């Protein structure tokens, strides 16, 4: 009986720890740079402003056959001291597609930036664009965007 218990204990430890250990290393998400900027432009000449530089995304998932999803969510609208620019006025284009998809930012519903299944190691380039409208009030606006990689 004791031998059986010992066997079960050893089996439990060996079956649990490696999984925990390996899964802790399986999900990797890196974004560079950590900030981008849209410079002022004439809305008539440049109705869509491209961000100062592209965002490079590196994603790696190992040791899992599971589905993965990468979402993007804005914490809110772009905010200055007194005014806002709706965050829905920012869109992105990404390559390669698939597994990544173009879209528009949203502050309520996370938007799917990419999805797939199983192990993956991939880099993506994301270009962000701001609709340049006359009704924006002058100011310096800012907001945080959250990328979330979920492995099911």
């Amino acid at each position, binding site marked *: 009986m004791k031998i059986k*218990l010992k066997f*079960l*204990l050893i*089996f*439990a430890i060996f*079956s*649990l720890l490696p*999984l*925990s250990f390996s*899964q802790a290393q*399986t*999900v*990797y*998400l*890196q*974004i560079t740079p*950590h*900030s*981008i*900027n*849209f*410079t*002022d432009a*004439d*809305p*008539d000449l440049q109705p869509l*402003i491209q*961000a100062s530089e592209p*965002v490079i995304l590196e994603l790696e998932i190992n040791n*899992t056959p599971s589905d993965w999803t990468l979402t993007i969510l*804005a914490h809110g609208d*772009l905010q*200055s001291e*007194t*005014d806002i*620019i709706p965050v829905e006025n*920012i869109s992105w284009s990404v390559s390669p597609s698939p597994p990544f998809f173009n879209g528009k930012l949203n502050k309520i519903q996370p938007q799917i930036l990419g999805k797939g299944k199983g192990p993956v190691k991939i880099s993506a380039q994301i270009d*962000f664009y*701001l609709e340049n409208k*006359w*009704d*924006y*009030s*002058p*100011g*310096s*606006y*800012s*907001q*945080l*965007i*959250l*990328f*979330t*990689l*979920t*492995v*099911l």
Partner: protein
Amino acid sequence: MMKKLLLLLITFSLVIHPCLGQKETSRLRISASVLPRTALEIDSGTLSFISTGDVINSMIPAAENEIEITVKLRLKNPDKVSLTVSIPDDLVDPGTGNRIPAENVHWRISGQNEHSGKLAKGIPQIVAQWNKSGLWRCRISFFLEKSEDYIAGNYGQKIIFSLMSF
């Protein structure tokens, strides 16, 4: 008891634990700078008053009426912008030097803020005002007072539209 606990541990490690989702997050700061800016567009480059000899109306409407004016503004609160119209001199016939007083030209803004006025030589007249960023449109019509005093001829002058912030 111990056995049950171990079985539970094994079940967790083999079945439940691998199914728990793993998450990795990263943040990006997005910033945008918006500078004050204005633009003014007028859909006609000329105004023509053609005398028809009509004795019923006291005003000759410009052939181009109504003229659409588009004002594009990026205004910092609480700035205001005025659209003004001015005329530097009387209407002059370059062949003879004869004049029609600038004050004989009337204007009328139509739409929600309908109002009217007269041109005044060298004095800008405010025809519309805005205090918000955006793209705004208004329509303006011009009329020349009829007068027996005018001497036949071809008269001309420049009218200047300006956006002035204050």
